[in-house]
């Protein structure tokens, strides 16, 4: 191993890949039945970057050479940066050796487009194939599909990878036209459709024949960049995500707050802050759509084009729908309990199972992990104390904000003393 050279490549190609946020390694169940190396089951975050994001995969580009010129991308053709390229074998060695030391759950491999879509895609597939067949590697592999690659290559990719993603990059077609004029949204959507059909088809096959090969068992995901243009409000973003969940059966849509890396008059200025709160609200909203039974138009609509930044989308929905509250914790069905601010999935389920034994009062509810300081405004239970049914939404918001503020102030000194 030529350590110096590999180090330099790794620095360049990890640095260029870090803006891709799809790092999750869950959703697959690849067992180690061949006495080989690794398994892919429940995603494990092996480390966390100093910005607090999870590190579970070796996330790199095969190369940052690119024939395209997307405005938001560091690897764009017109950007004057150091270029590098890994060989197939180098990526394989890094993956195996990192995996054996328990640094990672697997590989996330993406690439700038060199020569053309198929040549690039073919190289990505080669890496995955080598890992699976030569090294009996059962760890997680996520390949980023290159828009415009042939169906044949996509099919092969699906046989080796756990997850495939085609990044939409911009949530809307107009946004893409503006910032990535070389790219065509059709080239992204076509492979998504192909993969959806293939995944459904293969899953049925697998039901019939246990031995049928797995095909992208963790499904497909995509990523959209948030805040690179002003034309895309949260409504546009969430409607687009919802459409892709429904139509293409995507497992995840990732929202990536735009990090200003280039001066370009189509983009926010270089000193613009990364829209981290907005990104976080989008994930919360996404969560509500996927797991909490919210419809997209309950979260964003013509009256609510942007998510609130000061409160989370569930609280925001509750305050706009005071007429459905208070909810009786001892009677309401799970779906309704899930809609109460301060009650998460786990505590909602616990409420439903525990109330079979006892009528729940505040004491019980607190013990079950409910954030009572929020939930108290929206529920009743087997107790007469502190019911506040006649408060307006605005007042409740003030109370909750005031409390979280004072909590923040109270915590601050000892958090600082940590360093």
């Amino acid at each position, binding site marked *: 191993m030529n350590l110096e050279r*590999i180090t330099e490549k790794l620095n360049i190609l990890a*640095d260029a890949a870090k803006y891709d946020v799809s790092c999750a390694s869950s959703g697959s169940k690849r067992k180690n039945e061949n006495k080989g190396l690794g398994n892919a089951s429940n995603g494990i975050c092996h480390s*966390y*970057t*100093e*910005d*607090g994001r999870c590190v579970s995969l070796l996330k790199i580009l095969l190369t940052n050479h690119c024939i395209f010129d997307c405005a938001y991308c560091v690897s764009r053709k017109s950007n004057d940066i150091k270029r590098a390229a890994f060989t197939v074998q180098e990526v394989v060695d890094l993956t195996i050796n990192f995996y054996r030391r328990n640094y990672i759950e697997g590989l996330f491999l993406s690439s700038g487009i060199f020569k053309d879509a198929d040549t690039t895609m073919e190289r990505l597939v080669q890496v995955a194939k080598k890992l699976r067949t030569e090294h009996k590697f059962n760890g997680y592999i996520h390949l980023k599909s290159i828009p415009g690659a042939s169906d044949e290559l996509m099919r092969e990719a699906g046989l080796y990878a756990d997850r495939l993603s085609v990044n939409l990059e911009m949530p809307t077609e107009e946004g893409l036209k503006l910032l990535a004029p070389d790219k065509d949204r059709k080239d992204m959507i076509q492979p998504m459709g192909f993969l959806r059909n293939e995944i459904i088809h293969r899953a049925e096959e697998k039901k019939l024949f246990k031995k049928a090969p797995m095909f992208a068992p963790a499904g497909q995901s995509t990523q959209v960049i948030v805040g690179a243009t002003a034309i895309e409000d949260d409504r546009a973003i969430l409607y687009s995500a919802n459409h892709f969940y429904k139509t293409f059966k995507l497992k995840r849509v990732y929202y990536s707050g735009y990090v200003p890396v280039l001066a370009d008059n189509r983009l926010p200025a270089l000193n613009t802050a*990364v829209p981290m709160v907005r990104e976080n609200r989008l994930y919360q909203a996404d969560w509500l759509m996927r797991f909490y039974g919210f419809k997209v138009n309950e979260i964003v609509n013509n009256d609510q084009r942007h998510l609130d930044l000061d409160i989370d989308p569930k609280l925001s929905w509750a305050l706009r729908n005071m007429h459905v509250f208070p909810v009786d914790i001892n009677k309401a069905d799970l779906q309704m309990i899930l809609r109460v601010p301060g009650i998460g999935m786990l505590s909602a389920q616990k409420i439903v199972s525990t109330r079979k034994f006892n009528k729940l009062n505040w004491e*019980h509810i607190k013990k079950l992990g409910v954030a009572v300081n929020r939930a108290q405004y929206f529920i009743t239970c087997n107790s007469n104390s502190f019911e506040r049914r006649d408060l307006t939404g605005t007042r409740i918001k003030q109370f909750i904000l005031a409390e979280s503020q004072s909590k923040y102030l109270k915590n601050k000194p000892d958090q600082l003393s940590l360093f």
Partner: protein
Amino acid sequence: MTTTLVYDGTFEGLLTAVFEVYEHKLQFVKLVKGELHNTALFDSLMQIITDESRYGRVLKGLQKKLSASGMQRLYVAHLSGIDDADAAVLGYIRYVFDAEQNIEEDYGNRYVMRVSELVKMMRREKHRMEAFVRFQKLQDGLFYSVIEPDFNVLPMLIRHFKNRYADQKWMIYDLKRKYGIYYDLHQVEYMEMDFTEGQGAGNVINSFTDDEDGYQHLWKNYFKSVNIASRKNTKLHIRHIPKRYWKHLTEKI
């Protein structure tokens, strides 16, 4: 009057103690791990001798009234070794035998609640260890790791690492509790090692493979490269990787 039951610290021993509680209709009991030394300190004291025919009966009784995961939870709570864990397990078991129906989800009961808390703590630490183990490759091909978890989770790690690293020899050593688990390509065994002679830890470092340094260096570099400086969030970082784990994390040393 409180009776103190001294048992050997194993789960089987604990269940044997439970048997005695019922056998002698004891009301108030205290469970203590270890050997009987100074009997004068206690009023009423009983040495429990772990006995299969006794704990077997308790186990059977429990199995009738609990699900498999309920049983597992009791074991894990006990494994935690936390001060009140045994008392919680005992309280839980008593509640199980008193009740007509399955009580596993009655979180209104303090013992059920406490066991669930203990299990949660254990699972969290187990999960953290699955993430934070860092193997180093030795010349003889062994992948070696040292950890210092808050709780005794090593036994809970066996399945995960055995399934994952089926084709490499590995060892995980708990420095705090002074024992390890070792996989020899066939099975996992518990083992003890003595580092006090000055040869242990130092020798291990001398016997790294040639490329071990290289991969550690690459991993550290990778860790730096993926950071996005403009998003720095130290509070979040530390919440995810508490500082007490850092000294065994290659990327944080």
